[in-house]
């Protein structure tokens, strides 16, 4: 174990985990990018700082998917560990650190749910809770104002979607259902599910594009 170090050679950070979405526009002064690069160079302190920045969001995400505190903690650790191991392959031209991290965390969380379901030999769709279950309650006082702001905007954008599109996004993103499973669960043709997924994401992108332009 390393002794405490005072010196943190990384850009100071004012927007923990809440920074504006900056898809594909990572630049050298992006603190997340600096951290991922330092991780790739083997600096474990960068992993600690990345963890500090993203833990609130990533834990919220994996907890929402797995629904169990113990599992969520393990999945969170697995996800960050995977990020550490794969930091060298992160390609900022393909997406933001946010997308990279949430993708890893979500996959690990869904894996955990699948393992649990397989263990119970229960693969029915009844595991998928009713849709439209986004909880709009705000975060506690610990939630940074900017994170709360971003969450509010994403929620608003989602709320603006037609219910069937929103449902498709929820079932796929948080429950990990495939388009075939969603089609069965909702009684819609496969092509309809596909179209809904695409339209929903395109609308989200448009609704949130103003955020991107505000990015520093």
């Amino acid at each position, binding site marked *: *174990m390393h002794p405490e170090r005072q010196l943190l050679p990384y850009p100071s950070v004012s927007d923990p985990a809440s920074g504006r979405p900056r898809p594909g526009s990572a630049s050298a002064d992006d603190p997340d990018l600096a951290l991922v690069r330092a991780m790739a160079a083997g600096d474990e302190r960068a992993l600690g700082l990345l963890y500090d920045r993203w833990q*609130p969001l990533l834990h*919220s995400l994996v907890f929402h998917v797995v629904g169990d505190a113990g599992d969520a903690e393990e999945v969170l650790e697995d996800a960050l560990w995977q990020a550490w191991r794969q930091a060298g392959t992160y390609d900022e031209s393909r997406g933001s650190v946010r997308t990279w991290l949430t993708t890893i965390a979500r996959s690990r969380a869904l894996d955990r749910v699948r393992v649990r379901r397989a263990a119970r030999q229960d693969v029915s769709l009844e595991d998928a809770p009713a849709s439209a279950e986004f909880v709009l*309650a705000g975060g506690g006082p610990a939630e940074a104002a900017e994170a709360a702001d971003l969450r509010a905007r994403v929620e608003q954008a989602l709320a603006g979607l037609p219910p069937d599109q929103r449902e498709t996004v929820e079932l*796929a993103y948080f429950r990990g259902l495939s388009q075939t499973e969603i089609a069965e669960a909702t009684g819609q043709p496969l092509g309809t599910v596909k179209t809904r997924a695409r339209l929903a994401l395109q609308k989200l992108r448009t609704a949130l594009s103003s955020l991107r332009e505000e990015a520093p």
Partner: protein
Amino acid sequence: MTIEMTHDEVREALGAEALGALDGGERERVLAHVAGCDACRAELDALREAAALVAHVAPHRPLAPARTADVRSRLLARAAADGVSRASQDDVTIEAAPAPIPAAFPPPRADAEPARAAPSRPDVTPITSARRGRGAMAGWLAAAASLLLLIAAGVYASGLRRQVDALQARATQLEAERTRLADRVQQGEATVASLSGPAVKVIEMAAARPADPTGRMFWDTRTARWTFFAHNLPATRPGREYQLWLVTADRKISAGTFRPGPRGSAVVQAEYELPPGSLQAVAVTEEPAGGQPQPTGAIVLAGAMSTR
């Protein structure tokens, strides 16, 4: 079943792919197309960015402070160990100290890259000298020249900005490396100090068996650091380990368990506060692996504290 999908079919499926909702075969075909189609790739990347934002609507529930500290320290310990093993894979490892406490001097990190090539400088648009116009054209030309100058200055500034960014990234890397080296030096200095400081007492130990293992304990009474070296120790039997003891008038304090290396040598480091007058002896016994609260096995090495 490797029917290629048309561009339009792929495009239609990109939303489902961004949400991870495509089924196996279709997913493969979509990704195969995307690999060779810049437009679809850009679209997919953008849709994935949008999908990632959905994470934000999960109810806010950060890990509790006590738990998060645990997870964080586990991750950092794993990463530090991983860094050391990555370094040793690159053949720059020093011989590992045969001690239960990881080597006092961690092997140098091989993965700390030296100078990474700075991103190539964008060409700076040269400012061409504007020729003086004549008559009515003069004003227009002057304005055009100013405009050119402005554009050139903008290009130049953005070039500078990129250079500054590259230098900042480089400075960040170098600073991280400097901190790491400073830590290593500090660690080394602490070890040397605990062997050679004015307050260091040395306890000689002699063998209690025909084989002649030897041991020497360095006790830095100022920093409470203990450094123990042993040589010629016989290998421990399976399921057994050596245990090092600090013996005072009223108790025997375990300073750790260890196994000797292939040549019978061992180094143990420990930190333990003990009033300078209270140590009577240092001993090594053989115990069940993991150690015992009190010595139970045969004494392998023992040494009395000299009264000098």
